[in-house]
């Protein structure tokens, strides 16, 4: 029972990070059909930025998160305006090659600045201990990650379901041409969504820096997991991405804990079975 609780608990914490990082990818894919394999690089930059802000500049953890959101979001805007937009509507292969190129460059850049070793993150004291909940001790960091993830999910849900901006995004995901026809500036909308998505990825990377340490190959190492969240959830579906992240986090954690000799094998088998059953993902529209 104890093992079960800690598997689920750790799995949920992991899932929150995966969700916050991947959700932007899901929305940009749903909106523009752009296969951005460099999305993980935004998360990596977020993690690295956290180490610099905290270790070098002595910024508190909580204050660093919004700074990182703005910073990585700004990088996202620049890249979208300069590079990505040239390839909307281009072939999938071109998009894949371009974004792999960006990943390679990010690897080189980060190891040039920070060196090839994973960067340690020194969490503030209040995140290092244990917190007692219902007579059990849980690591404070993971409790915080889950709480912060829940805030993001609530915020995203409110933002997309209850605001005008969200209504525009949903309309454009559903039917881009129709949305343009009724006067929505999809182009600008996409830049803003892209910035939001990359900013979120940055915060996710920073938030998860203790679980997924920032290192130059970050964007490649965890790429499969980010893509699983998007593909299993269904492109452009926030709810789908969340369910997929939860499944992935818990199954992966459980598999590695209970059957370490199989490594990550479980998650791949489960995911393939699921996609064989529903090729468009859990909440994706069937083609």
């Amino acid at each position, binding site marked *: 029972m104890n093992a079960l609780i800690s598997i689920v608990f750790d799995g949920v914490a992991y899932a929150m990070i995966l969700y916050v990082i991947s959700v932007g990818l899901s929305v940009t*894919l749903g909106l523009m*059909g752009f*296969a951005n*394999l460099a999305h993980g690089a935004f998360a990596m930059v977020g993690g690295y930025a956290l180490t610099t802000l905290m270790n070098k500049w002595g910024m508190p953890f909580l204050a660093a998160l919004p700074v990182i959101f703005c910073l990585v979001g700004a990088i996202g805007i620049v890249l979208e305006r300069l*590079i990505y937009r*040239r*390839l909307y509507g281009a072939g*999938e*292969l*071109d998009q*894949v*090659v*371009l974004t*792999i*190129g*960006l*990943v*390679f*460059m*990010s*690897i*080189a*850049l980060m*190891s*040039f600045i920070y060196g*090839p070793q994973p960067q340690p993150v020194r969490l503030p004291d209040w995140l290092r201990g244990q917190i007692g909940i219902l007579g059990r001790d849980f690591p404070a960091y993971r409790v915080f990650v889950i709480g912060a993830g829940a805030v993001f999910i609530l915020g995203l849900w409110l933002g997309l379901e209850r605001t005008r901006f969200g209504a525009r995004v949903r309309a454009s995901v559903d039917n881009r041409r129709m949305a343009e026809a009724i006067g929505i500036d999809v182009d600008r909308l996409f830049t803003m969504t892209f910035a939001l998505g990359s900013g979120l990825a940055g915060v996710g990377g920073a938030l998860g820096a203790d679980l997924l340490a920032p290192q*130059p190959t970050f964007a*490649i190492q965890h*790429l*499969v997991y980010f*893509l*699983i969240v*998007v*593909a299993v959830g269904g*492109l452009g579906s926030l709810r789908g991405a969340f369910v997929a992240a939860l499944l992935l986090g818990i199954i992966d954690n459980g598999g590695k804990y209970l059957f370490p*000799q*199989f*490594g*990550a*094998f479980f998650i*791949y*088998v489960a*995911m*393939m079975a699921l*996609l*064989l059953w529903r*090729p*468009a*993902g859990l909440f994706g529209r069937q*083609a």
Partner: protein
Amino acid sequence: MSDLAKSESAVDRLLRAHRIRPAEWLPWIAAIGIYFLFDGYLALGSQILIMVLFALSLDLVVGYAGIVTLGHAAFFGIGAYTAGILAKFGGWTEPITGLIVAGAVAGVLGLVSGFIVLRTTGLTLLMLTMATGAMLFELANKAGAITGGADGLQGIVIDPVLGMFRFDLWGRTTYLYSLAVVFVGWYFARSLVHSPFGRSLVGVRENAVRMHAIGAPVFIRMLIVYAISAAVAGVAGALLTQTTQFAALKVLSFEQSGEILVMLILGGVGRLYGAFIGVPAYMIAQDTMAKTDPYNWFFGIGLMLVLVVLFVRGGLLGIVDTLIARLRRKP
């Protein structure tokens, strides 16, 4: 009348496409020349030849059928491990049949995984190809008793080719053996893409909906070419194991899948010869640059990919095409 003449010439061109043009012998002449002129570089040369075959197999899938995959190393790797395990534990040390068996195993894996992977499109397909590779990587990593795990499969002994040509220290046999296998692979791939089957693949790539509409069995065709390509990649992997007497875990890695795609893109996709240009260019550059500074190398390759996509679609061969077209316009 002029219209008719034009359409005839188009048909003629299609009918003549399978005939080998003189320029197509150039890579082979160069390869034989290298054997005699640069015999200090035969080890690198053999590696390049093997990767050319691997890139060629990828071109069938990416360039002709339009299936973008990030997991082709799965087939390369399973071929490599099959050949190694056969020789080490099965006592099957005869090289040529070893290649065939490894190719068959990779082909079956291509058929099985293709059955799942090819039902999807876009990002899901990309992810599934990556996952196929990652699964095999995990498997090879954990099954250390058979595969040697992270240390790789060592102690493989291979018989002389055709019972006559021993694998010598200078890599001469290795080079010529690889050259022969790559030539056969090239001839096969060339015949395939110029066959009606190959033309129908191009149709699928250009417009799958229309191919459905004219009654072509799109899924089956894609599955077949995926399996064929997997088999060729498996042969390339087996060749690598046989000639180096070693199978490293890297052959199954994502890096391997990414690298081969990069080489193919640099050369040019969907024309068979991209592999012959891109692979040597990449590997020779890597051999000279990456040794001193691997990270500068990464940056350079990344930048090159971005520039290729933004400015010169079609890779190095695309540049050549543009130059030739420009020269022809100015008499």
